[in-house]
């Protein structure tokens, strides 16, 4: 019986099928996932150290281990600089070989042997050019994208969890609990977030973790309002009353009955929260209030682009990465919103 097979799909499975039917949204998800997976393997894609070296009969793995220059016939005991033409020449001798990453620069690599002054325009050595400190731009973008996405993911998760928990408590218990929480949110929400960030970045040593904590503290309020409204609506539905009449406890009712039916706004907002978080981090970095110096970051690149307006490759490529990332997230969000729209038929 065919109808039975389709009829027994859970609501979330059906929403997923609707999502898949939206080609733009689905392919955005695929493209974004591929980009994230690639950036997670950034060390294999963009690294100044060769992945594998065969030198005079022995195998070396510079990715995992530092070898002094003397290993490869150099003069010093310092770690090998694989961009050094001397070393490159040694590795290219007959019998020796080295497997390089496609882009032979790391995010912090300074090429002391560069042919052009910094910032240099795109060339065969640096596909997207270098920034004003001589670091390869492509490597910066790959690592910066990774930092942005991971940060956004963490911020989205913490913000969503906080928002759902506080919203659920307000909506389910209502009355005085709700009143107290709402007033607290009003007070908390009126604190000047940016000034607090400036003050904290002056007091504490800047770090990604600190930034995450500070942004999380302010990022949950919008969502908690939505979850609260959903809980307020759902808690008076008959299936909740029926569960109460059966003697089911509060936590169980919230967890099993109301929460799954209140997640639509949460899920719909996820991609948009991600893109907001990426933007937030970029803006803070642009202002110099974000991640500690030296961390690859899109915002810091934008600031460089502003300072070196004639080095068009910096601002243009960073801009392109940001636009593509945010667009993909927005397309996903749109598709998700349509997929979860209860008014849409399941044709």
């Amino acid at each position, binding site marked *: *019986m065919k109808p*039975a097979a389709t*009829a*027994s*799909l*859970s*609501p*979330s499975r059906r929403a997923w099928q609707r999502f898949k039917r939206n080609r733009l949204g689905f392919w955005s998800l695929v493209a974004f996932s591929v980009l994230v997976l690639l950036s997670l393997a950034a060390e294999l894609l963009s690294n100044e150290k060769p992945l594998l070296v065969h030198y005079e009969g022995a195998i070396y793995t510079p990715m995992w281990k530092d070898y002094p220059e003397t290993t490869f016939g150099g003069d010093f005991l310092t770690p090998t600089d694989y961009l050094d033409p001397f070393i490159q020449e040694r590795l290219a001798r007959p019998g020796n070989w080295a497997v390089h990453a496609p882009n032979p620069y790391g995010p912090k690599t300074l090429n002391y042997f560069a042919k052009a002054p910094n910032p240099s325009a795109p060339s065969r050595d640096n596909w997207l050019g270098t920034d004003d400190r001589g670091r390869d731009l492509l490597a910066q973008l790959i690592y910066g994208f990774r930092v942005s996405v991971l940060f956004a993911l963490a911020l989205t998760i913490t913000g969503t969890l906080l928002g759902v928990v506080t919203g659920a408590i307000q909506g389910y218990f209502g009355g005085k609990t709700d009143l107290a929480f709402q007033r607290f949110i009003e007070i908390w929400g009126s604190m000047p977030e940016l000034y607090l960030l400036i003050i904290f970045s002056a007091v504490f040593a800047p770090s990604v973790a600190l930034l995450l904590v500070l942004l999380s503290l302010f990022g949950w309020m919008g969502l908690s309002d939505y979850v609260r409204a959903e809980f307020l609506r759902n808690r008076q*539905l*008959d*299936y909740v*009353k*029926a*569960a*109460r*009449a*059966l*003697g*089911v*406890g509060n936590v169980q009712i919230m967890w*099993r*009955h109301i929460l*799954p*039916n209140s997640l639509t706004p949460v899920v719909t907002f996820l991609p948009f929260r991600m893109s907001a978080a990426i933007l937030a981090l970029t803006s803070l970095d642009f202002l110099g209030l974000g991640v500690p110096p030296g961390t690859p970051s899109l915002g810091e690149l934008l600031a460089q682009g502003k300072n070196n307006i004639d080095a068009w490759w910096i601002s243009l490529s960073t801009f392109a990465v940001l636009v593509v990332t945010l667009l993909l997230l927005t397309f996903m969000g749109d598709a998700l919103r349509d997929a979860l729209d209860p008014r849409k038929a399941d*044709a």
Partner: protein
Amino acid sequence: MKPLLDVQDLRVAFGDKEVVHGISFQIAQGEKLALVGESGSGKTISALALLRLVEGGTLGGSVHLSGPTPSTGDRNLLSFPERDMRAIRGQDIAMIFQEPMTALNPLITVGRQIAEVLQLKKGLTRAEAAQESVRLLAQTGIPEPERRAQAYPYQLSGGQRQRAMIAMALACSPRLLLADEPTTALDVTLRGQILDLLDDLRQQNGMAVLMITHDLNLVRRFADRVIVMENGHIVEQGPVAEVFAHPQHAYTKKLIDSRPVRDVVEQPVNPSQATPMLQAQGLRVGYPVPLGGVKGWFRKGEFVAVQGADFTLPPGQTLGVVGESGSGKSTLALAALGLLPHGGTLRVLGQGWAGNSLQNTPANQALRRVVQVVFQDPFSSLSPRLTVEEIVGEGLKVHQPGLTTAQRREQVLAALAEVGLTEAQFPGLLERYPHAFSGGQRQRLAIARALIVQPQVLVLDEPTSALDVTIQKQVLVLLQRLQRDKGLAYLLITHDVDVIRAMAHQVLVMKDGTIVEAGPVHQVLDAPQHPYTQRLLAATLA
């Protein structure tokens, strides 16, 4: 005489799915025609198609509207340009809807909404239109029409809102009025008034009325001719008296035959000896409501929903509670379930709800096993994200946490079989989600969820009012069988006197939070004492 509206082979399709399969009928000038069918039969869609208001649907066939004078020719509405169609709507054919609260704009006064139609369609000035709208409201019998014209929809009662809707529809003296379940959202005593009003206005203005309804009593009372629809087909049409006396089609027979039948054990146990299942004395339930002004900052007012209620529910019997919306009957049900704080005494099997009845103390949990509930709307009473097994098995998880999954599944299947849902009928029954079931089947699921903890009392809060008539009968038969087999006692809340007649042993009639009349079912229904009961019964029987 040429018919006012001649519908030939009307088809409505959404995508490649056809929902109305070529229906043909005619409406004469000034005729009262009823279109009857259950939900999903395509009756509302057909009516909307006449006005070309079916969103996203493709229409086929022809709808000919005769010209305003005998000399002008017929016009096929389906081939009209949209611009001319807008002129037809409201002018020649008007429509009123089931729920006047959502059909009226909540932010504009009623008078203004009616005047807008007049300005638009008749080209009256603002002042003229305002005057005319008051006249139209007066025509529908709203008291103080000048004042009501200034009122916003929420300030009117349900009946007044429906009257305002009718006034708006009649603003341009249409020749045909489509009335989509015009009385379903109203209380019984109001229904008759609205029907009388429609009939009066029909005679005054010489318009025809196409009434869409599922209520056969209404058809019998109102219509000249009736069309019976099933699954997008017209199965039968003819004069009302003829169709009701000699139904030809099997489906029509089934519809007419769907009046609930009394089939209960009249005297199960001697009520004076057994411990009553439920017993209330001076039961009082109030809700806190905000007070206006500065006073409201410091304390809350109280709205008393039920006051001084005394009743006894003996084992194996049904106590019917009738009343209109707002009479406090659903509050009474929630109090009996221990879901609302209440005053006075309320004993379940001789035991009161301990302390705060909302808390799940062991004593209260024991009582919860005794009293279970079935709600009105089978769509909101089952969580859409839980499977049948999770929904029905929930009570076992609470009250018999020691059961293994296999034991629990066995009991769930047994409870489902008891309400007539089996794996043979629905493959993969336990893994299904509620959306895969129809309204009647969902109501069976809700009953199974209540039965699984083996309660002795079921609170039935309008258990059949959201269901189609034929399904309604099946559910009532199921409830009667369960009562006979298990000796369940029912606290049956309903506004439907037919249901009371079929099910109840004792009846309470409630009005404005107090019980105005109580007694054995025959006594209350056949020889009502209180004027309100008399009015209620008169409205239903008419």
